[in-house]
């Protein structure tokens, strides 16, 4: 009897905590929605911002975010794909291969602001790209590299061994084997990686706020050395004017758009990930 009472009390406790977590997260999402939606008028996405962000829309900020994350993925994908294929198809199991895998995990655990610091020095100073969208894209490209690598590697390793063997037995050369068997099979992994990488780049503020972005004065970059406005830094600047209700309201609107973008990318990545599972169970 005593045992059962304890059981019930503990169950009630952890059930209650779970319910509270759900309530908290529901509160977060609904707050964003309730605060953000009133700001979203018809032209919000397509208008220039005005009065230091207190009025107007977020068109150029959205463009800036899209430019940075898009270029970052374009730069990151070939490196991620090449380095994964080199590891899975060319390198023998050994210390160097283990080292490369470790490096991916270390890079993944590194605080993002460090990518900003070192990236600014490496690209901004030594490559002389300064505070610009090019520097920002390069930094984000390195930052999302592990995300892409892990997704692609998972997909390549999920490929059943029998397909490799069948390809080998037919005398396919290694490049042909990669082009005909490995790449088609890892396609969904690449798409998942790209989408998750885009989501990660879209949500990043610390690494780009002092290396690539500006609050006002620039619309679209006219040269390689121009900074861009982004949603992330827009929200950051407006959030620091907490006393000003118009600024905060605009920040909620921009926040909702950013969150929508990140969620959309993540959900799409899931759809493709389920495809990977299906293919590998074939």
């Amino acid at each position, binding site marked *: 009897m005593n045992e059962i009472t304890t059981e019930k009390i503990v169950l009630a*406790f*952890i*059930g209650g*905590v*779970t319910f509270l*977590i*759900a309530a*908290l*997260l529901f509160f*977060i*999402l609904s*707050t*964003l929605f309730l605060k953000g939606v009133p700001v979203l008028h018809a032209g919000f996405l397509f208008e220039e911002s005005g009065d230091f962000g207190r009025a107007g829309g977020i068109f150029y900020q959205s463009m800036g975010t899209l430019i940075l994350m898009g270029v970052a993925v374009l730069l990151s994908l070939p*490196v991620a794909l*090449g*380095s994964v*294929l*080199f*590891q899975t198809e*060319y390198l*023998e199991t050994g210390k160097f291969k283990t080292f*490369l895998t470790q490096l991916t995990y*270390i*890079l993944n655990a*590194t*605080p*993002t*602001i*460090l*990518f900003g*610091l*070192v990236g*600014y*020095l*490496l690209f*901004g100073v030594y490559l002389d790209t300064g*505070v610009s969208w090019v520097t920002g894209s390069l930094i984000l490209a390195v930052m999302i*590299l592990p995300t892409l690598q892990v997704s692609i590697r998972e997909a390549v390793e999920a490929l059943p061994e029998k397909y490799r063997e069948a390809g080998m037995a037919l005398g396919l050369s*290694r*490049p042909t084997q*990669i082009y005909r068997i490995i790449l088609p099979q890892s396609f969904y992994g690449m798409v998942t990686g790209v989408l998750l990488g885009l989501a990660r780049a879209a*949500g990043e*503020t*610390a690494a780009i*706020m*002092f290396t690539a972005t500006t609050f006002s004065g620039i619309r679209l970059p006219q040269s390689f050395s121009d900074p861009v406005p982004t949603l*992330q830094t827009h*929200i*950051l600047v407006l*959030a620091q004017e*907490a006393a000003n209700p118009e600024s*905060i309201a605009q*920040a*909620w609107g921009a*926040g909702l758009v*950013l*969150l929508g973008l990140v*969620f959309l990318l*993540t*959900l799409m990545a899931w759809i493709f990930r389920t495809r990977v599972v299906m293919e590998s169970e074939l």
Partner: protein
Amino acid sequence: MRADLIYGSTGTRYLEPVGWVFAIMTFIFLVCAMGLGIFLVVESVPVLRSEGLGFWLGENWWVGESFGALPMICGSLIVTGLAIILVLPVALSGALFTSEYLPPSFRRKVKGVMELLAGVPGIIYGLLGVSFLTVGVKDALNLLDGNTLFTAGLLLAIMVLPTVLTLSEDALHSVSSEFREVAESLGLTKLQTALRVVLPQALPGIVGAVLLGIGRAMGETIAVMLVIGSLDRVPGFNIFVSGQTIPSKLGREAAEALGSGLHWNALMGLGLTLFIMVAILTFSGTFFIKRSSQ
């Protein structure tokens, strides 16, 4: 046994042109990853040379005079520790309930929402923190200023909750159901089974999940920067005062020092310190997981 097996047949060792392309990509990856660590060390040298050990032990960060990182180191440790103390019981309760008691269809929904929330950008949490948490903490505790170490810790706890919860739940759920059946057939209650059979088996995975959460909390810049008050002083035992963490300091001052001078080197030194702290955490965790899985 024959001793003269001539050579290991390891396949072709030459690289095709495509192989060279892949090798170059691997080299770029290597340069970027290693470059991160190397630059942090090299660029920290000037400030370490001028401050010595005082860089880590000094309490004063006055640009142009002295660079002491102790307030930021303490701040980082306090805020991260606070976040973990707050998140651990909550996340584990949630994980246990989700894994062991929720019906499968409901569980999948919970997991989906958690994984989605794990990707919410730090800036969004920062915005929520500025708008609600600082005010809430200020009113509830009757403080003059809501921007405190406690606020930052609480915000980080909320931020890493979905990550820690969903990964711990993965660890619990992946324990083979055979063990549960055996335990229940021996007359253990469901709770006893969960605590005495499932939890110990899932421990390495849970430790991994918590470490990932700590790492994320320790490195978070934006959310912390907006609610911590940015005051460089060694906080002592009072957590209800403004403070500073390493990432928030970096976030505040990187734009001013950009790229040159001792101030920049000092920030790189802070970056190196943060990197080492995260590395120690990760390695000790990996070590623990290895020990306990033996």
